């Protein structure tokens, strides 16, 4: 199963932390720090896999992707396939991009509850739920629509980029 999803920027500041097995906040910070320490020490042109037993316990591995100013990190155990996880990161990023139109770090910072919604449509309870970004997007839009109609006031954040037409 997938143990955790971590999104952080290249300075190690967490942008999204999701642990599918409960970790107390202090532990979350510690884990994020150690993951960052490992990732920042890796050169550019190497594999996207790291064995993470030192950080997350025996048998765990992590796959990461470095995109612009962000690291996307998936932590998982031996029941998953590394290459497949790498593609799952791709799915997440693609979906974010479709959602925010040219996603950047700022979108994620400001809309991190939306990002949680997206992630919940891709991974559920540590298992892969959906791998088609179109369908994820559709589900998220459905949620937005129903949320809107459920309350008179709009709670759904529009993307930064949409507003400013970057």
């Amino acid at each position, binding site marked *: 199963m997938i143990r955790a999803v971590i999104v952080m920027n290249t300075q190690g500041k967490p942008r999204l932390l999701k642990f599918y097995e409960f970790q107390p906040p202090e532990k979350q910070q510690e884990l994020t720090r150690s993951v960052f320490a490992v990732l920042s020490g890796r050169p550019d042109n190497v594999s*996207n896999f790291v064995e993470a037993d*030192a950080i997350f316990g025996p048998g765990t591995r992590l796959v990461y992707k470095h995109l612009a*100013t962000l690291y996307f990190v998936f932590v998982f155990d031996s029941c998953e396939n590394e290459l497949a996880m790498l593609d799952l990161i791709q799915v997440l990023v693609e979906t974010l991009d479709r959602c925010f139109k040219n996603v950047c770090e700022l979108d994620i910072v400001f809309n991190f509850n939306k990002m949680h919604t997206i992630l919940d449509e891709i991974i559920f309870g540590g298992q892969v739920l959906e791998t088609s970004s179109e369908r994820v997007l559709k589900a998220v839009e459905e949620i937005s629509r129903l949320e809107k109609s459920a309350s008179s006031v709009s709670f759904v954040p529009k993307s930064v980029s949409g507003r400013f037409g970057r």
Partner: protein
Amino acid sequence: MEQLKTIGRELAIGSHGGWGQSKEFLDLVKSIGEARSKAEEDRIILREVESLRRRIAEPDVPRRKMKDYIIRLVYAEMLGHDASFGYIHAVKMTHHDALPLKRTGYLAVTLFLSEDHDLIILIVNTIQKDLRSDNYLVVCAALAAVCKLINEETIPAVLPQVVDLLAHPKEAVRKKAVMALHRFYQRSPASVSHLVSNFRKRLCDSDPGVMGATLCPLFDLISADGNSYKDLVISFVGILKQVAERRLPKTYDYHQMAAPFIQIKLLKILALLGSGDKQASGHMYNVLGDIFRKSEQSSNIGNAVLYETICCVSSIYPNAKLLEAAAEATSKFLKSDSHNLKYMGVDALGRLIRINPDTAEEHQLAVIDCLEDPDDTLKRKTFELLYKMTKSTNVEVIVNRMIEYMINISDNHYKTEIASRCVELAEQFAPTNEWFIQTMNKVFEHAGDLVNVRVAHNLMRLIAEGFGEDDEGAESQLRSSAVDSYLRILREPKLPSLFLQVICWVLGEYGTADGKYSAAYIIGKLCDVTEALLCDDTVKAYAISAIMKICAFEIAEGRKVEMLPECQSLIDELSTSHSTDLQQRAYELQAFLCLESQAVERVMPLDASCEDIEIDKNLTFLKDFVQQSIENGARPYIPESERSGMSNVSNFKSQYQHEASSHMLRFEAYELPRPSPAHVIPQVSVPTPIADLVPVPETTYNSKTSQASKLPSVTDASSAAHGLKLHLDGVQRRWGRPTYSSSSGPSSTTSTEKTTNGVTHIDGVSSQPRDKLNESRRQQPEVSAEKQKLAASLFGGSAGKTEKKATSTQRAPKGNTRNAERPGATRSVSPETSKEKAAPSVPDLLDLGEPNPTSTTIVDPFKQLEGLVGPTPVPSPLDNSVKTSGLETPDLMAAVYTDLPPSGSSSGSLGSTIGDMYSADKTSNTATSAPSIKKGPFPQDSLRKDARARQVGVTPTGNNPNLFKDLLG
């Protein structure tokens, strides 16, 4: 960051909080983004948290405000600040009816609370209600909370609702319900054991997504007990066939692959079901062959499926044709330029050699390449592979490589692992004693405190007993070489404590044995040890005992012992030590020096560490004492078995464990407390077993048993009678000798030692542990199935004895050349490597300008590469400009979409282009060395590799491509 700040500022000026999040949240994020230091950031958030704490508790907070507060709290906690005061408000928010609020509430509680948190009890009711809601979004939100928050005790409360949802009209809900049940299974398999049939039923769900979700719990169930699901093999194969034949709706395609994630899960399941089952495997051969044929090598996900197929083929009952296909796919992985694929290739190779060790031969050079790769992950994976293929012919090369790597890493976790692997391999395959001791020394020197204590004791035993040869000469030679090497090593300024213990013990036993060194010299050295920086009490105890032994041998020989001043000061220091153990030893030594030679010889016989000590288990010598005590009115001892109303210790313990493991609310009353049997033991007036706390050299023990009224054996025997073997084991392990303990002791410890070695043979070593190591080596071929296969190839195959000879003759120069050539091998000087590095290091961003079609995944990968050959030099200057100026606009998508043509990361494709560009050189290259195709395109490269090959211990012989036979053959 800069950019973030500017945009943040723009936003603050322009938007006035008109969108989704409140202006305050925006301000918070902005000010955090502008914080110059961690301290400043912390101050900002603390201030924020304080204000939230105040405002959240105000009465009548508007609902929308509350939602905003909760989100800010989640944010604060993500940055590592305590938000626990808000948990209750998040819980309250889940009770709201409005969907946005409810969802926010659920999001917050799943992030905030653990499954055992006290507040969960307040949510269970809401979850129950929401699971029955008409709005499927509410149901989904509740299911998400179920996955995270429901623990073993609360499962029964929501289980019926979740099971009902399996028949929900929306497939998204069915899918999530299956996954929630899976989660229940993970939490407590017993709670859903009656629902297994539901999983089977969902396998036939009309929606492929639900079917796919069902595979996850089934995978878990099958890995726990495969035999009950053999009947599903045909269904799984059928599903896989349909998926592979693209019978699923197009929407399940991912990058031109038909439902790859479902394929991967199915392959994993088939691997489990087919393992060791010829009949089940028979059903799979066809479909696996199909998948190999249809495999899509150009996309990342296609390779993922391919890799999973290799795993499956190597796990099920072997089929020659499939294995061939798997080997072919593996070699494609290994030859790939992408590090990811190489990594998968090394892993796949590790699986294939278990079935056919010859597979590795072809990929020797690729594997050596991976070993020298700058990528740490790849390197470690390769070491894992080498570890799997070690045998006596290549153990030296491999272990030396491992140690070399071990010295250079700082990651303690991995250091421990690799050190223990070195030890394990050395223990199993050591060609000579000297090599073994030297290897151990290296391991201890560099990873000393990380290795298991057991290893140190094994080493001591080995030096004391030799490898079981009867040849006294060889044994004493071994010892003196050990003493020599230790005296040399002692010059090092910093040595790990465990290693110092070994050194002290060996010097004490054998330092003066061959007469090469004087007693005073050795004692001086030992005193130096105690003054070393990192010397702890244990080492001091070892050192002073060693000094005592040397003095004893001197006195027994009739020589006068000159007390060195530093030794005297050591004794003085220790006799006032805080540690009573050290004090005792110091006083013993002092007393000892006054004894006459005959007494000394009895107390401390020369070279007695291997002698067996007779144990009087019935404690007959205590009879008088017991008799006397009883006469004086003491209560007689009642054997444990005869004591009424008291189950024995182990029973009690297991019962307790059972209770702990079931971890449920107990409804029946607790039993009456029992008197703990442990209290009865000291009845025989046994003094506390001090000796167990700190390891005591055996000979001192000897002296104690005779001097100090035989205390240890009393403790031993009495505790053994009670089944408390805890510290017995400790004693034994320390000495690795079944000296004084119950007869069951030795066999149990030795067997555990064996299993840690990964070897599972049982031999009755307890009687003659002297031969143990030796014997285990002799019995190597019948050790485990895996090793058996390796061994078979070793003795039966091409790797004959001649080869072994060849390697051994080349061993001598190897050590020197390696060190000499080391700097040359670091690949930093040669021009083509710099090029190699430059191309792949280009960051993802550079792909911005590349005319790479965003959705042309159908394009033939090779054509794509061809197209790239020309333009490659063009983008690179462009890239640099992008890198410098373009950084201002970090656009994730540029990278994302260029990654889309799944031929892999940009680095990979560029790398391969370079390979193509140089392919012209290849032809000229073939003249110089025959197997050049495997050696890579560059002549220098291949030359260097040849040099490496020689270093590693084999000479490439003309046309024979079997380089590194000793390593890989």
